[in-house]
């Protein structure tokens, strides 16, 4: 496991990366200042947010229980990589996504 918050003395020489394939361990979600909040009762799983997401941060999640009668899955965001750009909220045809301020 890569040390993501090393002390000066723990950094490799010249901040080199010596573990191949370790980029997947680096999460960029904390760059976000807004998060998309999805109302799963409005999501019709059309996939527009997935198409428009400039990252790859819309993920299909199976519904546990349905109040709206909708079955199957809905789209939510991946908090590890979502930068909070809000394009999904803009594009959602049913208005299921609202942007909420992240708190530090």
């Amino acid at each position, binding site marked *: 496991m890569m040390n993501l*918050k090393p002390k*000066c003395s723990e950094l490799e*020489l*010249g901040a*080199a990366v010596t573990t191949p394939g370790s980029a997947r361990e680096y999460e960029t979600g904390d760059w976000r200042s807004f998060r998309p909040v999805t109302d799963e009762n409005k999501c019709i799983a059309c996939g527009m947010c997935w198409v428009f997401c400039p990252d790859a941060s819309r993920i299909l999640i199976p519904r546990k229980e349905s109040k709206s009668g909708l079955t199957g899955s809905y789209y939510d965001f991946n908090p590890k990589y979502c930068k909070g750009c809000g394009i999904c909220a803009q594009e959602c045809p049913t208005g299921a996504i609202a942007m909420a301020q992240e708190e530090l």
Partner: protein
Amino acid sequence: MIDSHKRQRIGIEVSIGAAEMVKLCRPDGIAAYPITPQTHIVEHLSEIVADGALDAEFIPVESEHSAMSTCIGLSAAGCRTYTATSSQGLQLMSEILFIASSMRCPIVMTIVNRALSAPISIWGDLSDIMANRDVGWIQIFGNNGQEVYDLTPCAFKIAEDHRVLLPVGVNLDGFTLSHVVEPLETLTFEDIDSFLPPYEPKLRLDPDNPVMMGPVGAPEIFTEAKKAHEDALVASRLVIDEVFAEFGERFGRHYKAVEEYKTDDADTLIVTLGGTLGETGHVAVDHLREQGEKVGQAMLRVWRPFPFEDLQRILAGRKLVMVYDRAISLGGPGGPMASEIKSAMYGRADAPAILSVIAALGGRDVRWKDMVAQVADAKEMLENEQMPNYLMVGVRE
């Protein structure tokens, strides 16, 4: 001609001597672009490689930006790497200089100091290196040809030490030093082989052990990366002292981070950096001493890491210190070296009066007689409590 297997004392142009010493250090790779007044060094090295006297890759590139970029590639691949430049060439490299040091590439570069345009000047001053003070390199100065010759193998040994792994710039004055013929006491392949072991990289580009050098440094690690670089540069001083001491023991020529000349009882000191004013200063001090003036001289050999403690020890308790800069921080505090020496002495009860003197820009001659007169002027200014922030000497205004 120089015999690389026999110690000699011969008259030789300093640039050619420097190139001959680089040969003895057996670099694996050289990437360089010619620029006045550095050209003779890489020109001679290209001949040495073409003649088969040195087994190295000599890569002629189309600019200094490419020269330093190529040097980083060579160094990252595990090569002992050398280049040389001057003035505008150093400026064109500037972007890459930061990367070379941050990636901890132990490149050695000879920097033949020359003024920066405009107006166009091929003559000497320290504008080029002063514009690149903060590139994170170790920066050392030779005051004459012998020192440049001797400091070159020291530079490789310091750079490649695993406690350091930083690039080193060896500075010398353009023309007044690079193009003069000096008597040089040469060393041999056998001497340098026993002093400078082959380079053992700590990390290198190797398909069997993949490593990514120079990756993105996100905000979570950038501060730590800068602090690690700063710590390494400051700690390199220990290795610099060790290497100078070992060189002295083996070859009988001794070097220090700050050299002193007749400072013992001096109430007034002149401080210089680089050969032109360094050796002129000696003559001025000798004449002032003959007149009974208690004047001495301190010469910085190591400019980065800045020798704070040495200067505090040498300057403490003096009455007047005149710091000669061959560069000006335009719109700033005057001379860059004076500014740093003032900061080294700030708030100390034993601090002397420090006068920043800006002199010898763009090849303007400063004679020993001028320096003698400037010391008298400075003493008078101090007595009359009329010390300026800085004094640009010899200027018509």
